[in-house]
């Protein structure tokens, strides 16, 4: 038997996903739709937050959502109350969304008819970090009930995100949430990240965040026109 030898191959394991994500990003740009993906732990209030986002953006914008969930369609049913088009991606046992699933789910949708598309990832702060979905903005959501050091426990996903939202602010007194400590841990794993503190339930702080989204859309379209 011949002697073993080493051959260099240099293959990115996630190349297939990255290629699809790039093509999605190009489609989104061409259609002028701004795409936001949401990542969070299970139970952080992602669906309520998204429902309020969809409802409050709707008077001014055309919005839609894709929702990743392991087994149920409950989230899609809840989000449908916003009257926005919503499609469920049931991932089965898979703990994250991949670009190909987004591509499949978008079949039959005319992206030109949309201003915003939201992609709610499976509730999980570990696995989704590796997969680019072609989104323009990755939003990481945490609630005050989860503790101020959540970002330090999941640095990779916080580092990969563009903006952080801290929700359930109506409970912050009850759980003695230390806002400065939370801000410090977010800035530690992701320096310069913009943070929104809000309550999806009472509506407090939502306006500032929605205004931020409007600006992002306007900026993206301005760049696309150049």
């Amino acid at each position: 038997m011949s002697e073993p030898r080493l051959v260099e191959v240099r293959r990115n394991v996630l190349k297939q996903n990255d290629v699809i994500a790039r093509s999605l990003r190009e489609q989104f740009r061409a259609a002028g739709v701004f795409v936001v993906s949401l990542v969070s732990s299970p139970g952080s209030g992602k669906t309520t937050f998204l429902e309020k986002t969809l409802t409050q953006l709707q008077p001014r914008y055309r919005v839609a959502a894709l929702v990743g969930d392991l087994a149920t369609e409950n989230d899609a049913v809840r989000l449908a109350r916003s009257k926005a088009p919503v499609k469920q991606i049931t991932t089965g046992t898979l703990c994250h969304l991949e670009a190909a699933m987004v591509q499949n789910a978008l079949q039959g949708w005319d992206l030109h008819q949309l201003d915003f598309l939201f992609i709610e990832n499976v509730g999980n702060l570990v696995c989704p970090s590796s997969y680019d979905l072609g989104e323009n903005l990755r939003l990481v959501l945490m609630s005050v009930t989860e503790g101020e050091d959540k970002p330090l426990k999941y640095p990779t996903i916080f580092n990969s995100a563009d903006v952080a939202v801290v929700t359930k602010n109506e409970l912050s007194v009850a759980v003695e949430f230390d806002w400065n400590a939370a801000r410090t841990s977010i800035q530690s794993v992701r320096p310069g990240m913009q943070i929104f503190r809000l309550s999806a339930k009472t509506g407090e702080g939502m306006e500032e965040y929605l205004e931020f989204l409007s600006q992002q859309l306007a900026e993206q379209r301005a760049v696309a026109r150049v």
Partner: protein
Amino acid sequence: MHELSIAMGIVDAALEEAQRRGVQVSAVHLRLGALSGVVKDALMFSYEVACQDTPLEGSQLIVEDVAVIVFCSQCRETRTLPSVQLFQCPECGTPTMDVRQGKELEVFALEVREDPVEEHEVQESEVQE
């Protein structure tokens, strides 16, 4: 846990390269960044499972950990981060998000032997682009 899908991706990539070269793989060398989002132990376990019933069965996965390297705009130097929980220059303390290394998830080399031509084996010359 998404390490099994990652492991299957590694096996697919290694098999494709091996078939193209007409070689047998005894070990796969992987570069794994500290920011790749992949847990090494879970990946090692998943790799064995992913190799089952493939020509890679019994092969080894050799993981090279890749630390996070950032560029510090203050020092104008690249620096290795001691921890992924603190994105600041370890020398001067300036926060930085200018990541130059650490997201790798790359099959970078294969330990191979030439495929022995056995009598019962029909050599197919597959042309792969």
